[in-house]
């Protein structure tokens, strides 16, 4: 059934709720987890252009927060006795999540309804909205 579950995180508190639900579900149905964090290339570009940040520096910082976020997924999975791999990649988050889901042949994507930007006036976050448009597998959206 759902043997391989992609759990996407942006490190936010809301993502953590989704990660926990993804790991719990994997445990309950005996699935494996693929934890994914995408370093948002738009965030990098705008930090460089508008804030004058050093590109390498900002990339390294985001890469480090990504590593931390996926390490948390790995820890949660280990504690639940669920087998987990993790990945940190750079690109446009929604596109990357959809691509990874396809190339890694996952059966289900689990994400939070909102991420870090937490624009709460949006009914649903822009990343998950795009993933819903383009994903070729089922998507579980956690509130």
């Amino acid at each position, binding site marked *: 059934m759902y043997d391989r579950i992609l759990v996407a995180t942006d490190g936010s508190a809301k993502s953590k709720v989704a990660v926990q639900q993804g790991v719990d579900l994997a445990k309950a149905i005996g699935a494996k987890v693929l934890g994914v964090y995408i370093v948002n290339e738009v965030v990098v570009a705008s930090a460089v252009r508008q804030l004058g940040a050093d590109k390498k520096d900002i990339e390294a910082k985001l890469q480090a927060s990504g590593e931390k976020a996926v390490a948390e997924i790995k820890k949660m999975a280990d504690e639940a006795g669920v087998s987990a791999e993790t990945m940190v990649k750079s690109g446009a988050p929604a596109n990357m999540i959809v691509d990874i889901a396809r190339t890694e042949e996952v059966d289900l994507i689990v994400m939070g309804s909102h991420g870090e930007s937490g624009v709460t006036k949006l009914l649903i976050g822009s990343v998950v909205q795009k993933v819903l448009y383009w994903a070729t*597998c089922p998507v579980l959206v956690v509130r």
Partner: protein
Amino acid sequence: MYRKILIATDGSEVSKAAERGGMKLAKSLGSEVVVLNVINEMAISKAIAALVGRGFTEEDLRRTLKDSAEEIVMEATKMGEDSGVRVDPLIREGDPALRILETAAIEGADLILVGCHGEGGITSNLIGSVAQKVLNWSETTVMVVR
């Protein structure tokens, strides 16, 4: 995990995929299932406006739509029961997304399954209006099936 799963279906192919996915999840999680078909109030009023007086009565049309809804939920119920899942079939009338959300709240469902498109339309990549509204307003986890 999920104790009660609400599967919304309109009997379309994608809805059937949602039914299958939901039943499998329910079986491995030991969840109860509510299968819901909403008779779209727009479909009722359009059918009445178009067909009453042309050999159909309003009662005929309402009965036909009700029969079709019953067939959809009974088929899904059988699918669940064949795999040992307890299924509660429900039929409501109104706006599909609103009724799905309302039923999820009343039934205390902690997971809603919907198809990415229903009978309404296939625009292969994007997402149907019912699924979109459910995602926008749901207070619980929603799984969108393709």
